[in-house]
């Protein structure tokens, strides 16, 4: 057990526990803030995988962007006192069963598969190669993603604005 392993377990457990908090919490605000720690845990795992750019992107976008949006959404759609979440699309038992089967199958497959030998290289800068790839091999997806973001931006604004759209 070295420092790396300990760190991994700490953050893996943080991630999983937070995720459990997200899905089992009865209070939607708690769920949202648990999600914060789950994202942190994932960011830490990225760091352990020496994907520093992605780790920071994860924090910036998930925590600073998506999560803020979610919390906003929660706060705008939930009265302060009533935060309990109705559940019951699927009752708990079959849901746990299904999730369990899937988790079991996945873990089983993952642990039994013979993965190719790890070729761990020393840490290298990732921002520059990612940028280079985005502008070369992935330039079409990159442009599409830009357009998608623009469309999402405009679409979100149009969907969310209220009075004027209704009057018109």
């Amino acid at each position, binding site marked *: 057990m070295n420092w790396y392993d300990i760190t991994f377990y700490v953050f893996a457990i943080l991630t999983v526990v937070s995720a459990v908090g997200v899905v089992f919490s009865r209070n939607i*605000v708690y769920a949202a*803030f648990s999600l914060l720690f789950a994202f942190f845990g994932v960011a830490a795992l990225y760091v352990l995988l020496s994907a520093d750019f992605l780790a920071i992107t994860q924090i*910036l976008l998930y*925590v*600073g962007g998506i999560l803020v949006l979610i919390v906003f959404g929660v706060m705008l759609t939930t009265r302060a006192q009533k935060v309990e979440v109705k559940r019951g699309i699927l009752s708990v038992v079959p849901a746990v069963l299904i999730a369990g089967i899937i988790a079991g199958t996945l873990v089983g497959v993952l642990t039994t598969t013979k993965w190719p030998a790890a070729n761990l290289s020393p840490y290298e800068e990732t*921002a520059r190669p990612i940028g280079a790839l985005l502008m070369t091999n992935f330039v079409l997806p990159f442009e599409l993603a830009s357009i998608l973001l623009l469309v999402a931006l405009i679409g979100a604004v149009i969907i969310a604005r209220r009075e004027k759209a209704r009057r018109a």
Partner: protein
Amino acid sequence: MHNFITYYIGTGFWGSLVSSILPLVYIMPYALVTMWLELKISAHMQDRLGPMRTGRWHGWAQPLADVTKLLQKEDIIPAAADKVLYLLAPALVFIGSYAAYAAIPFSPAYIGADINLGIFYIVAVSAIVVLGILMAGWSSNNKWSLLGAMRTAAQLVSYEIPSSLAILAVVMVVGSFNLNDVCSAQSGWFWNWFVFGKFPFLFITFIIYFIASLAETNRAPFDIPEAESELVAGYHTEYSGMRFAFFYLAEYANMFVVAAVAAVLFFGGWNSPFGAYLSGPVWGAFWLISKGMVLVFIQIWLRWTLPRFRVDQLMYLSWKILTPFALLNIFAVGLWVVLRG
């Protein structure tokens, strides 16, 4: 050698611990001094004396007294508050501010964590503050707090965009996210600093960044979230005592973060203004802190000079003025960088 502590102690547990505590050693006295400065400056700008008695000499012990008072106060938790989040929020806010210190290059010999994506990291962790504020506002179970928190969050998220774009312009010029690289790129006499050396592109960038950073610290004229006439004290209305002190500390810490980032990006960071003269590890720390403090002084100055923005004006400024200008600016800078070669 970018971090003398890890250089001597090693990158193990102790080295990391000392490196991560070191900024705290700086923040405490800095905050006290700045609090006193703010009291005095505001007083003199309003043509009065301000604290004069505590500690005899110009009331120098006034902040100490304030802090002592705060620490002694009873820690009140409102009955209707959500206790877990209520307790967690100040810590989260402070963590957000404090984490940024890890990447600030205080001197050529000291940067908490010399990561390649330093400036990107600072932008990212600052975002955590937003969640802390939302958490505080919501958990207080008070409509002023909630409104204040929502306003703050909206403001921070909005101004993050022009400030990030401004930072990106500098990154494009330097070609690196690493703040030490940014400093090194401005070495030499002070006319090599980006704000002067790359005139007018990075001067415009600096203006954009500085305005956005004012908003990000919730300082006047962007202090609408804390507008006492409307919202009592915004998201930390319910807080008192030690926890209030945390918010206070976080705010001052944040002021220095944006000032230090501005100093690094535009004013040469730890570089001496006189080329090789007066440079070195210790002088470096001196220069960075001095530059930071000058910018902090400007923030205070502005706070006591300008009136407060209305909410819609605030959003207007961000989305319709700063962001388009920042985009144009980044385009211009990009073009310039490419054309220059």
